[in-house]
């Protein structure tokens, strides 16, 4: 209730404080624009933004929703849905400005673009010279929305709803916006030459590593390791997987910021790695466990897609297949080993996004080739060992920052509203205890 008042208050205040600044700024610029909008490029990035929205809602929501027990499905879906809404507004108020605004010392964007002030229809010379600046902002908004939603798999079935809201808002501002700035917004990693085409570090390492911290800090679910916690609706999970795959074409090929050769190449690399990841996971599991599972194929596809993300625009199709194959094996064993480590990363965010993201960033340092994308760099296998070193620095920096930042945020949230629901509420399930409704009647 208090939370609800806070939300309404924040919305009204935020809007009121910037309403004047903004509406003037959306004017199609007074001075004649130097850069010309291309209708084809704009159409593709608009479509890609819609596709990435579909990854969060309904894609990820159903992927996770099918994996939990039936008493928690609505609560799980709600995490993705409300993060999408919350981050959409944060991004417009100040998130975009912090991530992509004029650089301040290589670590953060300035507040010049608060409330999208100055972010209008004229293209930005760096962020897509052929599309309106707002399209780039919007496309990036969808990335900012899905990243905290990915983390929710780590604390599924046990987090208090108000804690989720607070955590997502803080994480988005404190972790996501700086990391996005370092790599994509003109910050220090980008200047160093780090390659992350569509978010291997910004999206997958940051969410995967933060998921590990969440799983450790929140603790295991009641009955973890003893109770039966099988997924309640695998067809939902498969539908979610299909929508993630579908949407990932926007995520990766859309990151070319135009309908061009790099977009085509990234689209192909994405598809090849997704397919390979699924097949290799299936084979590994078949050999290791004796049966190929449908959940395994779905997880393998997502692992392949996550892993190829940073390299999608820099590698050719054969490299993408190699990346997908490693993703299938590495992520499979990461998920198997989780059982021995004792933390309850409920829906395997660490094993898939964390391990896949780290390997993907490093693999980009191996397989990247200027023959595929002249704006990129050559990797180790193309004679440029330094690139691999830069990629390793990016992995360490993003992982370390995410660990420390997420830990601090969780402590703050725990002290203010409390992270976990009570054991009785956990037995009842999130749906009834947090939202007073049932999924199925």
């Amino acid at each position, binding site marked *: 209730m208090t939370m609800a008042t806070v939300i309404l208050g924040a919305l009204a205040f935020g809007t009121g404080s910037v309403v004047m600044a903004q*509406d003037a700024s959306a004017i199609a610029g007074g001075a004649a624009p130097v850069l010309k909008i291309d209708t084809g490029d*704009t159409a593709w990035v*608009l479509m890609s933004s819609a596709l990435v929205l579909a990854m969060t*809602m309904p894609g990820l929501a159903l992927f996770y929703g099918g994996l939990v027990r039936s008493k928690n499905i609505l609560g799980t879906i709600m995490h993705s849905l409300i993060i999408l809404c919350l981050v959409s507004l944060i991004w417009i108020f100040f998130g975009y400005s912090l991530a992509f605004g004029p650089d301040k010392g290589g670590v953060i964007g300035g507040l010049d673009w608060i409330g999208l002030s100055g972010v209008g229809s004229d293209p930005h010379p760096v962020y897509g010279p052929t599309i309106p600046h707002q399209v780039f902002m919007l496309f990036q908004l969808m990335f900012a929305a899905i990243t905290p939603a990915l983390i929710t798999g780590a604390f599924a079935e046990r987090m208090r709803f108000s804690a989720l809201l607070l955590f997502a808002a803080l994480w988005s501002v404190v972790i996501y916006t700086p990391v996005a700035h370092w790599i994509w917004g003109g910050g220090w990693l980008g200047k160093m030459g780090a390659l992350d085409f569509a978010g291997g570090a910004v999206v997958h390492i940051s969410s995967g590593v933060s998921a590990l911290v969440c799983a450790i800090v929140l603790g295991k679910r009641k009955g973890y390791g003893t109770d039966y916690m099988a997924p309640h609706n695998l067809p939902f999970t498969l539908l979610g997987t299909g929508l993630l795959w579908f949407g990932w074409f926007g995520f990766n090929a859309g990151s070319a910021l135009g309908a061009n050769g790099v977009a085509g190449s990234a689209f192909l690399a994405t598809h090849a790695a997704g397919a390979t990841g699924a097949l290799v996971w299936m084979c590994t599991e078949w050999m290791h466990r004796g049966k190929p599972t449908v959940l395994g194929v779905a997880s393998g596809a997502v692992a392949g897609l996550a892993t190829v993300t940073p390299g999608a625009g820099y590698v050719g199709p054969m490299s993408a297949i190699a990346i997908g194959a490693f993703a299938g094996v590495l992520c499979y064993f990461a998920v198997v080993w989780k059982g021995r480590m004792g933390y309850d990363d409920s829906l395997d965010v660490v094993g898939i996004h964390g391990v896949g993201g780290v390997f993907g960033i490093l693999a980009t340092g191996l397989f990247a080739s200027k023959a595929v994308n002249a704006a990129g760099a050559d990797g180790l296998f193309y004679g440029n060992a330094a690139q691999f070193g830069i990629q390793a620095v990016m992995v360490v920096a993003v992982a370390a920052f995410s660990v420390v930042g997420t830990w601090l945020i969780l402590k703050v949230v725990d002290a203010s509203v409390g992270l976990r629901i009570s054991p009785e509420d956990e037995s009842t399930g999130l749906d009834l205890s947090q939202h007073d409704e049932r999924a199925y009647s």
Partner: protein
Amino acid sequence: MKQLSRLMTTMLPVLACLALMAGTTEGLAQEAGAPAASAPVAVTSEAPAAAAAVPAPPKIDSGDTTWVLVSTALVLAMTAPGLALFYGGMVRSKNALGTIMQSFIILCLISIQWVLWGYSLAFGPDKGHVIGGLEWLGLNGVGLEPNADYAATIPHQAFMIFQMMFAVITPALITGAFAERMKFGSFLVFTLLWSTLIYDPLAHWVWAVGGWVRNMGALDFAGGTVVHISSGASALACAIVLRKRLGYGKEHMMPHNLPMTVLGASLLWFGWFGFNAGSAVASGALATSAFVATNTATAAAALAWMAVEWMYRGKPTVLGAASGAVAGLVAITPASGFVGPMSSILIGLGAGIFCYLAVLWKAKCGYDDALDVVGIHGVGGIWGALATGLFASKAINAAGADGLFYGNPAQFGIQAVTVLVSVGFAFVGTLVILKLIGTMMPLCVKEEEERMGLDLSQHDERAYS
């Protein structure tokens, strides 16, 4: 025999009507329309008279065409599977298929109606500012040359099919009002009549060149009046004329599958980008601005509904967040191409709060608008149309107008007139159509059929086994 006669009284008029139209218009359309398609250069002098009004021959832009074609597919995804699952999850499990079927078959039926006569009535050459002429029956003269009146850089047929998806989803929205009880045959007749007698004229008034509401200067970017007010007001008429569901107010009628409803709501959100940003009928700055406004208002409305419900009921529900999102999408629809992101937050906030209260008050009014079409599309549509008169700004879209908050109170007045006209026309028209059908066939299923559920009684199949 009884089966056969029932079939004849319901399906035959529908099919006969379609077949007759197809027969009479096919010849013309085939001869004039198809060659225009395959060899546009050869026939430019005679077929598209409207397009020839522009001095330089209009040139098709591939980027604009791509965006409108993709948007068309996005709007299709709103009806089926989006709306079908949104509604399908909210009914009881015995009615899931019947509910999905209504959206699905409307998609089929209106696609044909639109090609045969709907597009011509709505967008054909103006007759007295109230209706389109029959010149474009069977898409006669609607070829691949752009029509500069509607969209100068895309083929005329791309505009036509984009508009078709709007004509399809509008009657499908109404089905939520009479969910779980309408007879399938009567529903088909209703849909065909409603589309022809309500949707087509209203679309003409508001959007077509020469339409009187458009001439008045009313702003409706993507269908707040044409789609949402019309369907919401008609839904109210349906809920009043058709009897309540058996046991309404006494039995529990919980949604049988809320994840399905959320899936539908998400697909609606996804498809709505085509609906609103596609309404720029070009790719570029205006489409972008509409896209940003759409996403922003939706997020704000879902959060507002959630917060109000949290305060009022004590828990934030998932159905509430999903309903709030849809309310925000509805409300931003007429404004999306005329307002900036901050205005769209305020429009979304208003939508979340007003629509929540409208849904809450429904119970006190006593009518059985089963899936809250009135509360969400009616109230959200009215708020959106009025809000356009408040927040519209020429700084966002020079082709639009300034609203009250930008110094032009007259625009608010025009919007208010538009609301009254569309509510009145849709409500009264729907009452007349329902009474007319009621004299020929029963509107609702029999009581025992309703208890059995639409799936078994109307379609002889089960959703889940």
